[in-house]
């Protein structure tokens, strides 16, 4: 259930500049784990960096969404958003390290994300669910295109956690939590 925050406040929160958030996403858990140097030909590494940065940009957007949405949810929803935010920060840190590992420059979060005007708990959950789905689609696109098994393995381990987020968000929206036997971007 959404707390009785005024609509204007909610709008303000969701349209707010997420200055400072960039700092969290940039520094945050970026230091987790050491940078793993990826051994692949230079052209492949450039392609890896491009794909990894694309996924990183989506993770950063999702971090902004959870940060904005968490105070507007209550009870379990707020706990869920907090837990998932922590994990998305971890994902962003891992991706930053991978980008650096292939010799690239990690994408920095935008200073502002516009998520529209989601009103009420169900709209907020739907927004978060949609962002998770977009992330999953990006991972599914990137994984077979990565140049090394290590990169594929790392992306898959992160994507699997996002798949769990999607499962919980489905259940919270009253949709059957169990989807198909193979992860798709329609989770």
């Amino acid at each position, binding site marked *: 259930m959404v707390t009785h925050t005024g609509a204007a406040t909610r709008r303000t929160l969701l349209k707010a500049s997420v200055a400072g958030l960039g700092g969290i996403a940039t520094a945050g858990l970026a230091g987790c784990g050491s940078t793993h*140097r990826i*051994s692949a030909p*230079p052209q492949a*590494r*450039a392609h890896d*960096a*491009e794909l990894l940065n694309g996924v990183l940009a989506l993770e950063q957007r999702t971090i902004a969404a959870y940060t904005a949405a968490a105070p507007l949810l209550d009870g*379990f929803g707020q*706990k*869920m958003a907090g*837990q*998932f935010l*922590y*994990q998305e920060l*971890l*994902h962003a840190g*891992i991706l930053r390290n991978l980008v650096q590992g292939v*010799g*690239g*420059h990690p994408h920095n979060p935008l200073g502002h994300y516009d998520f529209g005007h989601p009103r009420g708990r169900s709209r907020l959950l739907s927004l978060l669910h949609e962002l998770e789905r977009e992330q*999953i689609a990006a*991972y*599914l696109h990137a*994984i*077979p*295109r*990565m140049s090394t*098994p*290590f990169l*594929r*393995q*790392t*992306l*898959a*381990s*992160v*994507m*699997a*956690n996002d*798949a*769990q*987020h*999607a*499962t*919980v968000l489905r*259940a919270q929206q009253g949709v059957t*939590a*169990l*989807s*198909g*036997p*193979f*992860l*798709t971007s329609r989770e």
Partner: protein
Amino acid sequence: MSGSDTPRSRRELVSDVLRALTPAQERRMLLELVKAELLAADIYAMAAVAEPISPAGQNLARRLGNQERAHLNALAMLMSQSFGATLSPSQAEKALATHGIPVRFDELHTERQWFTLLEQLEGVLEGLYFRALGRLSDPGHALLAARILASEAQHSTLLLSFRNPNNIQLDVAEGQIKGRAH
């Protein structure tokens, strides 16, 4: 991109060679996954009719078991081979022991014990897919393994949330899914 063309060290080059699988090795790795899925399908089939488990729990076990069967079929199709033999309970116990899960089915008297087994089993499956992903050379094989790893992770969340509803720190505990391969 920095565009720097740092030469790979000898250690990294040796590591590349050691990690790259031959087609025969890749097939053996897929076969290991098939065996684990066969085991999982059998254990879920037992859970789906186990008396200590509530009807809702049995239903969940049945649905997750169907998905393990779908994983098995996809892997079998990839290998152009069929697998279908069902393990006896004693064979299943031995197979579980090789994965670090010591269990005797005649000692599972509660739903909690059964679900603990299923959760451990999912952890093993996650670990096997994670490990395979670190070695599979074929991107198509890797994508299938990644999609199944995510499915197993979802199973873990559903099993945990069945027993511990609304405990998000437990139900989605890890930010990276690596499982527990023995």
